[in-house]
């Protein structure tokens, strides 16, 4: 604790396990398990969620989590952006497969949460806020749904609509 460098990082605080309202202070575990502050204070800072930019942590090499435990598992990363919400009032959504597939396998989302076929999915912020679709992770373990512009990140003005759908491999 207290080893983090950088201004923003030093503002971050994580409740210790013995006072987080989840762990039983009487449990022997609170003396043995790592406190979040010890690990998370060393990672790229964010203002919400775990207060860690997890994708950045991976890309910078701050962490190097294992991709598989079975040697035979095929590890897939797909570098393909999908643009969504082209006609909404909010900026266009850019969904980057690469950052998602660094963490997740294709089968975590396809085909039960999202069809692979471009244009085949009907997205709904109502559903997402209910913990469905993107909301299975965003709002639970990935950055929360208060971070509108991290997904709605592409201005309508000047957007090349030929970049949209039907270009998957």
């Amino acid at each position: 604790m207290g080893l983090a460098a950088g201004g923003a990082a030093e503002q971050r605080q994580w409740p210790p396990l013995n006072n987080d309202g989840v762990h039983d202070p009487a449990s022997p575990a609170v003396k043995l398990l790592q406190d979040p502050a010890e690990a998370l204070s060393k990672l790229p800072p964010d203002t919400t969620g775990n207060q860690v930019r997890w994708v950045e942590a991976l890309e910078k090499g701050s962490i190097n989590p294992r991709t598989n435990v079975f040697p035979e598992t095929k590890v897939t990363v797909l570098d393909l952006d999908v643009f969504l919400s082209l006609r909404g009032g909010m900026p266009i959504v850019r969904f980057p497969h690469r950052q998602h597939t660094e963490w997740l396998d294709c089968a975590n989302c396809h085909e039960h949460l999202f069809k692979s076929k471009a244009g085949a999915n009907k997205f709904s912020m109502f559903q997402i806020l209910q913990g469905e679709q993107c909301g299975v992770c965003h709002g639970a373990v990935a950055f929360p749904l208060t971070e509108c512009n991290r997904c709605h990140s592409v201005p309508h003005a000047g957007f090349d609509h030929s970049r949209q759908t039907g270009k998957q491999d």
Partner: protein
Amino acid sequence: MRPPVLLLTTLLGILLALSGAPAGAEYGDVVLNKRAEKEGVRPVVFPHWFHRIRFRCKVCHNELEFKMRAGANDVLMADILDGKFCGMCHNGRIAWGPENCDLCHSGKPGLPTGILGGHGTSGPGRW
């Protein structure tokens, strides 16, 4: 129609207070208590933050077949002892073995199964 709105807000507040959602939980902490307390041990606290530093989501949610919904997985100690679910790593070789009951069964008594919120959030839309 002001009074009903006020009433609903108050009821929601009371419900939230009664739900006992721990304010200091780390984002993504999962409580497993479908069976734990009935079996006489503390609820399990699973911290996503600790595990994702070491393993990508795909390891547990694809290779080990944990469904991505709190409460959707029937994790039995018998399976863990057989090397399934947590037991793939918690076997005394990759991580501590299942004889260290207290290290996982470390939650406050009475916590319901679910995934918790954390900094700046009140948790996911559906628990």
